[in-house]
């Protein structure tokens, strides 16, 4: 299980690196889409069907938004003059990444390994959840009843985003000085 997941995440990393270095913006978007959809596979492997559905649909809609914007804009990447010290930048990046990963590995060495998770707060959600919330789907039960307040905040965020996009994309910002 752990091996299978790390292979998929390995492909996601390669896809992400390609997405960031692709020349044409559309191919960069496709690579980002691949990373998103492989996340769906990880969710299915980790027994999270709710997240798989939401991630597929949200990833599709994000791609539609991005392609709607990038389609007839200048898609060619403006890389005037390859960076002279490309090698230096990459080596610095790898060094910093290695140091951070080493520090992260040091931090998580004595935490629970994948799979050994003894839920404490969630134990009350799981045993006897049917009686408390009555919903067969525990995640919906947690989302709408145990932590309904979060979901209200969540719906507000989408409302804010919609109002925000309407505000930013309106035609005239300021009334002409009378």
């Amino acid at each position: 299980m752990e091996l299978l997941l790390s292979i998929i995440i390995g492909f996601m990393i390669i896809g992400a690196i390609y997405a960031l270095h692709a020349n044409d913006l559309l191919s960069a978007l496709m690579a980002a889409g691949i990373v998103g959809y492989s996340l769906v596979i990880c969710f299915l492997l980790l027994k999270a069907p709710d997240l798989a559905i939401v991630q597929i649909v949200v990833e599709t809609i994000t791609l539609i938004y991005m392609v709607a914007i990038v389609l007839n804009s200048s898609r060619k990447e403006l890389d005037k003059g390859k960076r002279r010290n490309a090698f230096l930048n990459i080596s610095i990046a790898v060094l910093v990444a290695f140091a951070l990963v080493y520090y992260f590995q040091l931090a998580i060495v004595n935490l629970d390994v994948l799979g050994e998770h003894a839920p404490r707060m969630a134990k009350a959600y799981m045993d006897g959840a049917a009686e408390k919330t009555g919903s067969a789907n525990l995640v919906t039960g947690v989302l709408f009843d145990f932590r309904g307040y979060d979901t209200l905040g969540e719906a507000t965020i989408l409302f804010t985003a919609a109002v925000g996009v309407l505000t930013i994309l309106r035609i005239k910002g300021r009334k002409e000085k009378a």
Partner: protein
Amino acid sequence: MIVFIMCFILFLVGLYGVLTRRNLIKIVIGLTVMEFSVFLFLVLIGYIAHGEAPIIVPGMKEPVFVDPLPQAMVLTAIVIGLATTAMLLSIAIRIYKKYGTWDIREIKNLRG
């Protein structure tokens, strides 16, 4: 253990993308990649070996469920990520209309 480290590497790749890319859309892609890695990290924490998906099916006998709390958190976080990306894209397209390019350095010297 290796899975968490790979997840952290994906986070660093996204961070590298956001910090070094000059193209507005690639910065947004870098940010979404960072989001993916944090979501994966949260679900990985909640995974229980041989656990069932957290749906009560009538025929179940004494099931061990995977932890539903991180899944509820990630479901909320995915939609927050969508809202943030939509906001970033609306500002990016507006900047693109004003300057005609996605490139930050271009924008800097056009600004004069």
